[in-house]
């Protein structure tokens, strides 16, 4: 009996040891609970690579790159930033996408950024990186929403596909103000859903996006799904739907 108890204590201690947050923050646990509730998780910087600038000069456009390819058969990838007023960034269903994404985000101040990747056994792996910045990115109104051409340009975008061995890189950008709604007088207005399809209407992924993503967003996704043409279907909070097709 004592042995079992000791074993339990030992296991508990070692889980705790593994669970040490590499960048501690007072908000982390609350946000994690909100997103994955009581599901099991481990901190796993070994298998999740997050790249951010050494210093994010322009808090409105901070490029980030997340690569969790080392986690095989990953099911879902969620990104959030602890100290952003809009913490969530993107929530990707990975059924037919690789756990890789690059995009630009806004930051309100220096903040840890987290990548949560769900593996096939139902365990969340969490990668962490710190973004250094003087901030101010979330409370600034969108510049493009002041653009008189907004109506003409809204939803205009492009998509290019790059083949690399067995994977396809889908790179896209679209003109959209991605208004956070945090600035007095500006209502929130942003792309909140992206569906990636093939031209044969096979859905590769449905992705939830949030207004912490920079205006005129640019996304890069990767897939092993072989097709000649990818279509991105982007929806915004005002019910607009935009289509981008790689077909020339």
């Amino acid at each position, binding site marked *: 009996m004592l042995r079992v108890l000791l074993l339990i204590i030992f296991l508990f201690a070692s889980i705790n040891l593994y669970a040490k947050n590499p960048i501690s923050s007072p908000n982390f646990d609350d946000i994690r609970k909100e997103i994955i509730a009581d599901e099991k998780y481990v901190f796993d910087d070994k298998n999740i690579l997050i790249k951010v600038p*050494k210093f994010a*000069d*322009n808090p409105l*456009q901070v490029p980030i*790159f997340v690569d969790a390819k080392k986690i095989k058969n990953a099911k879902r990838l969620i990104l959030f930033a602890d100290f952003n007023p809009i913490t969530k960034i993107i929530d990707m269903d990975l059924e037919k996408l690789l756990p890789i994404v*690059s995009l*630009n985000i806004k930051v309100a101040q220096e903040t840890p950024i987290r990548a949560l990747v769900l593996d096939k056994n139902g365990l969340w792996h969490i990668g962490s990186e710190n973004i250094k910045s*003087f901030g101010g990115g979330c409370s600034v109104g969108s510049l493009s929403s002041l653009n008189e051409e907004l109506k003409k340009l809204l939803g205009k975008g492009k998509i290019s596909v*790059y083949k690399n061995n067995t994977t396809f*890189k889908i790179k896209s950008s679209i003109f959209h103000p991605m208004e956070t709604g945090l600035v007095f007088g500006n209502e929130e207005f942003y792309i909140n859903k992206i569906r990636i399809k093939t031209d044969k209407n096979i859905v590769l992924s449905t992705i939830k996006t949030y207004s912490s993503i920079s205006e005129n967003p640019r996304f890069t996704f990767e897939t092993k799904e072989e097709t000649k043409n990818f279509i991105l279907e982007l929806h915004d909070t005002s019910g607009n739907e935009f289509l981008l097709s790689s077909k020339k």
Partner: protein
Amino acid sequence: MRVFILIIAFIAVTSAKDFDYNLKAIQLAKNSYYIYGKEEYFSIQNGGDIANVSFIETNKSVILIDTGSSFAYGNQVKRLIEEKTKKPVKHIINTHHHSDHFLGNNAFKNATIYSDKFTAKEIKKNGELYIKNLVALLGETMKGTKIKNVDIILQNDNKDFDGYKLHFFYLKGHTKSDLVIYDKNTNILYASDLVFNNRALATIDANLKEWVNSLNLLKKIDYDICVPGHGKAFKDKTPLDLDIKYLNFLKTTLEYGNKNGLNVFEILDLKVPKEIKNFSMFEEEYERSIINLSNKQ
């Protein structure tokens, strides 16, 4: 007790001195000097002393080219000039609208400020924002810094300042409008931020192609000394060639990245020629350049 507190408060107030820039004037010709700015980014430690400022003593007055990042800096430039000459600073030329070059303007109450049209407009429009940004970076050092707008818009190739003629080149590339000053009397070229000497180029408002064109034009001038906006003054054309190389490298690297679908971090991992990597501030400026210029593409 109250008296004691008052004394302490008095000492605290009177001993709260301005930031000491410890400026030195480096002589280039009999009547010409420049003050070398540190090859660093804005910090509390350097008080924003990161750009070169030059001055020319004429028969009647002093012409000052750029005024640094703060009121305190401007004041200390004024004091430094007073050590060299009794003549007043009557003319100030702002070469472009970046905050490390014009925020010392208001230390010179009696001077006339000159710039070209675009720079004057930008200072008026965004000056307060520049101060706000630098307060965040430099804090107390920015005390007393206020916008002093441009008084006279330069339009001609030549201008006579109390009998002292200067030649102007209205160029662009580092910003939408960069003023280069050529002094035929001493054969010194004040190249503004179109030239960085072995210091990584700041490209926040740059147009790479136009910048290279401007540098090619400057190369044709047969100057004895060139004072860059950042880095030490020099005599030959090597720094200009290196700057051209750096800008072309940025351009081809971004084009390569774009063509191959690379993200900024993959672009940053590409190999960089050694002489470019050796520039001071390479790490910071290169990353900043790749990120900002990719966003514009």
